[in-house]
């Protein structure tokens, strides 16, 4: 389920092009790019904790949709991701 035929997926994290292997989660792509995911309600930078959709720490904005759990979503071509580290 969900496997792509491409060898590399290009997506945009905070407007920067990132290339990752197909099947990777958005959380992995974000963290491989050296970024954290979200700002906590008191402004702390947070990144994935549980890796399995439970903790909601890895929330990012994906293609304009807020609060997506990046560990539960696979990267796709042209996807635009916005993290706490966006400029």
């Amino acid at each position, binding site marked *: 389920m969900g496997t792509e035929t491409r060898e590399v997926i290009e997506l945009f994290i905070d407007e920067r092009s990132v290339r990752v292997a197909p099947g990777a989660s958005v959380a992995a792509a974000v963290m491989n790019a050296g970024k954290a995911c979200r700002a906590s*309600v008191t402004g702390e930078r947070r990144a994935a904790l549980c890796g399995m959709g439970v903790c909601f720490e890895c929330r990012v904005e994906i293609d304009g*949709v*807020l*609060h997506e759990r990046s560990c539960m979503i696979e990267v796709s071509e042209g996807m635009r991701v916005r993290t706490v580290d966006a400029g």
Partner: protein
Amino acid sequence: MSTKHDAIVIGLGIVGCACAWALSRRGLRVLAVGDAPIGGGATAAGMGHVAIMDDSEAQFRLTARSSELWMALRDELPSEAAVDYCGTLWVAADEEELNAAKGKHAFYQKRGVRTEVLDETSIAEAEPNLRSGLAGGLRIIDDSIVYPPVVCEWMLAEVVRRGGAVRFAHVTGATRTRVQLDGGDVIDAGVVVLAGGDVSARLCAWLPVRPRKGHLVITDRYPGFCRHELVELGYLKNAHSHAAESVAFNLQPRPTGQMLLGSSRQYGVEHEEVEARMVAWVIERAKLYMPRIGSLRVVRAWTGFRAATPDSLPIIGGRDGVDEPVIATGHEGLGLTTSLGTAELIAAILTGAPTPLDAAAYSASRDFGGHDGH
């Protein structure tokens, strides 16, 4: 146990807490008693709005006085009480409702309440996520929202600080001067006040108070999605109707950026489970006004029971010659708003302290006949 309490207040919701707090401020030693946790019933379940309402003159006076009292208290409350003067925006879908809004505006203006009529353009500017083509609305500028459980906790802490006490216990019986607890304990006091919300009739069987179930849902954080507490003017028809079930669009922006959506009203449902069809109905109603709300993510849904009376006014005060507690219940959806006015009135009745409110309108001895709701 000897009479060491000047007053016992039964019920740890916002009305009970406010009564205990107001009495202790006037020098009484108060025991607040009820089921734990503090503010855990309708108080926690409600939306927490302080709204000046105009359904009747009596309702207006109580809500307007209460609003003044909330305004006076705002700087004393802890920051976690999350007071926010976002204002209420009554939304008029069509010309008929806009005319109703204008009528309300005149009513409020005459009584010194700051309001503003919005036309089609200005309501779209005020709330960009409302659908286009709405006729307008009415803004009640000084309406606010509060996080009630924190206020309850703060009030009871004040009670304790002034020599009073709080006791978590299930009350099984009460007279004008005595309370009986589950387990057999009996406590005497100068006077007993019953503020048990929708379950008050358990201790005072004649009370014409019925539970009216409501559903609410709250979203993740979407700061700015709406700015005022939004209420459809059709709400009035629903709130006043004694139909078994109704919903109305009511959206509130919490200071956290979360959107709190209501509201439903149901009679005759005793269980507190979240009903999927009621939630769906509330959301469908909201989408008629805010189509984009459908994509917002709900993080929780819950229910609560309002204490509804046949004439939609609370019952405040004691009946002469009857050995039962002084009553403070029946606030339906306005318990948070009217808790302070109610407490002031209870204090006036019991201590002779001044109040601009006229007790007769909310009297326990008033005629409820012929309004049993069905």
